[in-house]
């Protein structure tokens, strides 16, 4: 309905392969970005930032990572939590070892550790496929849960066994630690997520992205046109784990403030898997949609009944959350395996051909 594509013709391949070739889309996305960078910090209160927006962004990042591996390269992973943990703990160590260095930089660096780990756990993907691989990734999950829980060095021998995020300043504004305001942390997270999302989009639409999808859709044919399966998969594992790692670091540093290894247990791996299933496998926007969806469910379950004047206790909320999540996954897989992203594209198409039905 809002699309006026007549007259938007392309005279170069560069303009033809723009991220958003249609002008109306460009405006839309600019609007969203502008809103989240300028308006939200001004209007949103701490609850919104702390309870919804920050976790939403961080989960989006993790989901983005998993979607690169599972949605684009077709390698199912159940170890996301483990890789996030690696990111978080390496970040913690870095911050304590280099107190002077800019924490944002360290967060980005800590991603490389999990990338490295991802590489190692990706190696089996050469030999094993599908479920076998999925199970293999569980190894990562449980191993790191154990490692960071047991080996005291990782949490600097705290009695609590938890990692406490120290205060770090950036142009003497506290960006991490107890005294960092929600606004600041939100903006930091937003910047990092936007930046990494852009990179993801670029990789996905280029040579590497095509190689991933080729492996995913038909690995034999892919190899026969000269795509190296192992390298391609390993790159996917590395990049995916990098995103997971940074997400993990942010999860502790910009969201929780302090954490024990349990926050990275297998359930978080599943939740993130669910995000990309509901959001849409093989779609960048899907990661965000899915994350939003899953972050919002528990909040709705808590608040809706309260609004209706029948508050339910936390445990029940937890139970409902599980049930609803599970049910939703099955429903989405049955009715829209390509998730919210697909639903959105269908809507967009409808708008484009409006008032025609197709």
């Amino acid at each position, binding site marked *: 309905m809002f699309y006026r594509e007549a007259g938007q013709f392309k005279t170069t391949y560069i303009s033809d392969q723009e991220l958003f070739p249609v002008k109306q889309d460009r405006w839309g996305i600019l609007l969203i970005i502008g809103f989240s960078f300028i308006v939200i910090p001004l209007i949103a209160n701490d609850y919104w930032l702390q309870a919804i927006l920050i976790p939403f962004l961080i989960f989006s990042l993790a989901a983005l990572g998993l979607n690169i591996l599972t949605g684009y390269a077709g390698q*199912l992973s159940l170890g996301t939590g483990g890789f996030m943990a690696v990111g978080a703990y390496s970040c913690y160590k870095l911050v304590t070892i280099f107190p002077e260095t800019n924490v944002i930089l360290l967060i980005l660096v800590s991603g490389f550790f999990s990338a490295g780990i991802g590489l190692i756990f990706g190696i*089996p993907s050469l*030999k*094993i496929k*599908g*479920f*076998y691989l*999925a*199970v*293999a990734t*569980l*190894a990562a999950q*449980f*191993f790191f*849960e*154990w490692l960071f829980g*047991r*080996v005291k060095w990782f949490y600097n021998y705290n009695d609590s066994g938890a990692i406490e995020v120290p205060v770090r300043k950036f142009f003497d504004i506290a960006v991490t630690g107890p005294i960092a305001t929600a606004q600041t942390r939100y903006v930091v997270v937003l910047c990092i997520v936007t930046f990494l999302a852009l990179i993801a989009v670029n990789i996905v639409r280029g040579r590497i992205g095509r190689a991933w999808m080729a492996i995913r859709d038909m690995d*034999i*044919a892919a190899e*026969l046109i000269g795509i190296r399966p192992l390298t391609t998969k390993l790159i996917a594992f590395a990049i995916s784990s990098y995103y997971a790692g940074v997400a993990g670091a942010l999860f502790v540093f910009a969201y929780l403030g302090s954490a024990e290894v349990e926050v990275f247990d*297998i359930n978080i791996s*599943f939740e993130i*898997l*669910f995000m990309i*299933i509901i959001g849409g496998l093989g779609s960048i926007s899907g990661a965000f949609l899915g994350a939003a969806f899953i972050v919002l469910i528990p909040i709705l379950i808590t608040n809706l009944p309260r609004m209706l004047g029948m508050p339910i206790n936390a*445990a*029940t909320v*937890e*139970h*409902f*959350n*599980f*049930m*609803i*999540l*599970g*049910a*939703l*996954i*099955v429903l989405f*897989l*049955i009715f829209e*395996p390509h998730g919210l992203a697909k639903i959105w594209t269908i809507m967009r198409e409808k708008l484009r051909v409006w008032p025609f039905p197709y």
Partner: protein
Amino acid sequence: MIFIQPFFDMVGDPVLFLQVIWEGFVTGILYSLIAFGFVLIFKASGVFNFAQGIMVVFAALTLVGLHEAGVSAFVALPATILVMYVLAFSVERLVLRSLVNQPDIILFMATIGLTFFLIGFGEFIFGGEPKMMITEELLLPYDSITFFDDMLILQEIDIAASIIAALSLVFLALFLGKTKIGIALRAVADDHQAALSVGISLNTIWVVVWFISGVIALITGIMWGAKSDVSFALSIIALKALPVLILGGFTSVRGAIVGGLIIGIGEKIGEFYWGGLVGGSIEGWLAYMIALFFLFFRPQGLFGEKIIERV
């Protein structure tokens, strides 16, 4: 060096070593049972049923829950079996039927969804807190026999578990071998068309296999519940069935059993002799590592068939 030491310990104290192996053997059997139910489903419907572990907990909880609700044990038992049937039935109706012909990975993820649903549902009904398995009521022994003047201790319940497990395996083997549905079931594993020619619809078969593995889950649940207590924490341990499968191969019953024992014994030994050296409780991941290690040499598992790729 320090990692070699344990070997001497084993030789040094064979009885203790025996004890460890026995412990491992018992857990191994339980792994095998879960894996077995799993293989059943995978062979018959090609579904990688992630929910098998949860079904164990769910079954056990239902049994205990019913009993707590005042139902006598021997009514509760068949009642639970009925519940497991209803579960199998509804899974087939609501999930499998609508997902038929979808890529396996989709079905796999669906079972993860199912897992979550069952966890939420179970906890909602029976509450989150751990429960005691009604061992006595089910007339299961709970003493222990000792050998080598109390050096080697075998729990009677463990022995019972092993026996029951063995029995149920035998029983199932017979069932698969002799009964019409059993044959059909095996046929499905090889070729869906063939199965139809036997004259049993796929859907029935699916219900049946899911039901059978539900029952197996119940047995497992009881045994396990008797050893520890019944709570959803179990479901994580139940995931151990997965490395067992990798080891044994998804499609092989034998593999499930052998794999289960290897993992069970392997991780007990590892935990007991090496665990301490690296901070303890390495059971959590050792199984997976063992499995991964095996994968490098036999990607299709110990007993899985080799896949010839065609283009």
